[in-house]
């Protein structure tokens, strides 16, 4: 029911507000361009993932502020929506942003089940969407869409890097422990692929139901596996508890995993996490002016240290800025916009990033070791790793 010919009150107000901002630019063309870009932030602001949603939001706002509050010459207006990490509400919440709030861009989300709901809606509506976290492979593989980009990772990426680095270190036998859900399965498959590619023998995958944290039954099986290393994919509270229990059980195989195992959780894990090696696209002591400036600015804005989620949010906004700059804020120029975004070479706090044909981020996967409560980068597991994007037809 979008009224095409008539101008409704809301649109009038929006144009009016925009022209105030752009009052110094004389041409009418500039006034039209200065209509705000509406950016919908569909993220978890309550529940277990709330902190991730908040950090992503801070980082997006930070980049826009750095650009003087405008992207591609247009002011930016944010619409926040708490997705509660509820998959069954995902389609309706995405529709709310797309149809009711008429956002030009949707940035979201963290939970991969909710992402499926968003993806369903934006594939039909064609709304430009940038994923700042959710890692489900399919969204940039068999389900890929030309209006959907991802600045975070596929579940496959960090785990593949870890498996490969582990095998290259000379480890012969390894197993994987994770939650029995899509992210865990995809991460485990990536680990297995990398480890076997490096010449190791993957023994088996141990799983428990998501999001249960009764890890003891699994840990008790570890000695019987006869492996040299255990890979793991857990995040948040599960990661904290798993690492602590693994340490307390004093198991012989070294613990390693996708970087989420020790990401944002080190203060809570304490010395149980010391020495754990993980692979991820970010680390705590990455050098480079870009990262240092980012860390400092984030701390000033959010009052806490930046983490990988903040970086992913920041790059989502950077990617959007690159696209909008290339088309001078003209979002109707879809071909130009997507081309510019796919071709974007960005200087991220994590290092240089670019985008694959399936529009997933290409990035370095770093090998990190926990030292003194920090995820210290000790090497590069894989340089410029791109997700294979299997099955993506665009």
């Amino acid at each position, binding site marked *: *029911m*979008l009224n095409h010919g008539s101008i409704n009150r809301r649109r009038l107000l929006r144009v009016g507000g925009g022209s105030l901002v752009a009052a110094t630019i004389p041409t009418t063309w500039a006034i039209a361009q200065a209509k705000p870009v509406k950016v919908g932030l569909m993220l978890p*602001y*309550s529940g277990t993932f709330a902190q991730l949603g908040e950090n992503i939001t801070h980082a997006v706002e930070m980049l826009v502020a750095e650009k003087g509050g405008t992207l591609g010459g247009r002011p930016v207006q944010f619409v*926040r*929506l*708490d997705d*509660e990490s*509820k*998959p*069954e509400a*995902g*389609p*309706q919440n995405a*529709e*709310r942003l797309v*149809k*009711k709030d008429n956002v030009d861009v949707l940035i979201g989300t963290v939970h*991969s*089940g909710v*992402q*499926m*709901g968003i993806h*369903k809606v934006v594939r039909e509506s064609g709304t430009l969407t940038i994923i700042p976290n959710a890692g*489900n492979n*399919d969204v940039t593989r068999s*389900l890929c869409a030309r209006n959907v980009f991802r600045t975070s990772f596929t579940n496959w990426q960090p785990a593949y890097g870890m498996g490969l680095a582990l095998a290259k270190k000379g480890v012969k036998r390894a197993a994987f422990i994770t939650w*029995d*859900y*899509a*992210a865990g*399965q995809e991460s485990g498959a990536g680990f297995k692929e990398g480890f076997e590619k490096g010449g190791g023998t993957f023994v088996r995958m141990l799983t428990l*139901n*998501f999001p249960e944290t009764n890890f003891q039954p699994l840990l008790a099986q570890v000695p019987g596996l006869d492996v040299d290393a255990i890979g793991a994919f857990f995040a948040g509270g599960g990661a904290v508890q798993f690492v602590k229990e693994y340490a307390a059980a004093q198991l012989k195989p070294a613990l390693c995993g996708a970087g989420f195992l020790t990401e944002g959780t080190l203060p809570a894990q304490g010395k149980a996490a010391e020495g754990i090696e993980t692979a991820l696209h970010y680390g705590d002591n990455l050098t480079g002016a870009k990262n240092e400036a980012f860390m400092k600015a984030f701390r000033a804005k959010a009052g806490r240290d930046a983490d990988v989620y903040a970086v992913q949010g920041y790059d989502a906004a950077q990617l959007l800025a690159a696209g909008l700059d290339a088309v001078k804020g003209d979002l109707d120029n879809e071909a130009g916009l997507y081309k510019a975004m796919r071709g974007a070479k960005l200087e991220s706090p994590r290092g240089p990033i670019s985008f694959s044909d399936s529009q997933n981020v290409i990035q370095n996967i770093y090998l990190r070791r926990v030292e003194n409560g920090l995820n210290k980068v000790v090497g590069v597991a894989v340089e410029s790793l791109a997700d294979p994007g299997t099955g993506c037809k665009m």
Partner: protein
Amino acid sequence: MSSSHMLPQSWIGWCALAVGALVLAILPFYVPSYYVGLTTVAMIAAMLALSVHLLVGGAGMVSLCHGAFYGVGAYTVFFLSPEGSPQPTWLTLPAAMLVSGLCALVVGALSIRTKGFFFLMVTLAFGQMLFTVLHDTKLGGGTDGAYLAKPILSLFGYTFDPMSLPRSQRSFPAYYVALGQLVVTYLALAFLLRSLFGRVLHGIKLNEHRMEALGYNTGLYKLGAFTIAGVFAGAAGHMWSLQSGFVNPELLAWHKSAEALLMILLGGINSLAGAIIGAFAFTALGEVALSLTDRKLLVQGLVVLLAVIVLRHGIAGIRLRDPRRWLQSIRSSGKWPNLTVRKPVQEARQND
């Protein structure tokens, strides 16, 4: 006591329902398309709530497996009509109702021996089992859920393609299918509750032992109600798939059942229309809370708390009352105000 209090008691009630249906029928032409989708969601919720009402309001059986039957209905569409190969509704809808009904028949046969709180827990367990099968195995696309091809709207050889409509009206077909299904569900359940079957159920709700003594095979009646409610939940689940084209295991989770219970309590447990009112009120509450604040859940919690304290018989039970007498009764009894005058159904507390 008859069960006719479940239904509008006068022509005024029936008129109100007819007006409501009429308003819903013309609504899409007067509101932005987002609200068409939102109202469709509310109508799907109302169908689920209606089927729960048959159990709770009709037979006094509080089940936490009901959401699972709804999810099974939605997943049946996924299994029959995977992405890329859509199937006609005349196939998917009966199939969804059949599969959900069969699940309900099996679960019901094993659970109806237990009563009250134990029934609640046994149904919770079965619901969790169905949830786990779809959540933890690859059968249904796993935890992230999966896409499906929305069934083709087809009946008696006549097929309708939503894509033939202008973009702004593409959500209309699902809306009208939902509206039609809602009306049919309401009328079917109203008829059922008024029939001999419904009266026996009501008798069981009031006093099961008495009905047994009168020679009724109460177990069979309860199983019948449980299965029929499952069939209608499956139909509601089918509508979810038709509207969203997406299934996720959370559709089967126990809090879906809890949400449906919440709706019928909010609307009023003593009338069938209360289920519809409750579903719309619950959806509207979420929407308003989202518009007003970032803390939707807090608003929802406080409203529900307030509702359960002062609205003892739901929205449908509100009757105007002399405010002075109302205040007086608070002062004299020291108890919370009670906005309703309708007497609660005398429940035999045999079930605990």
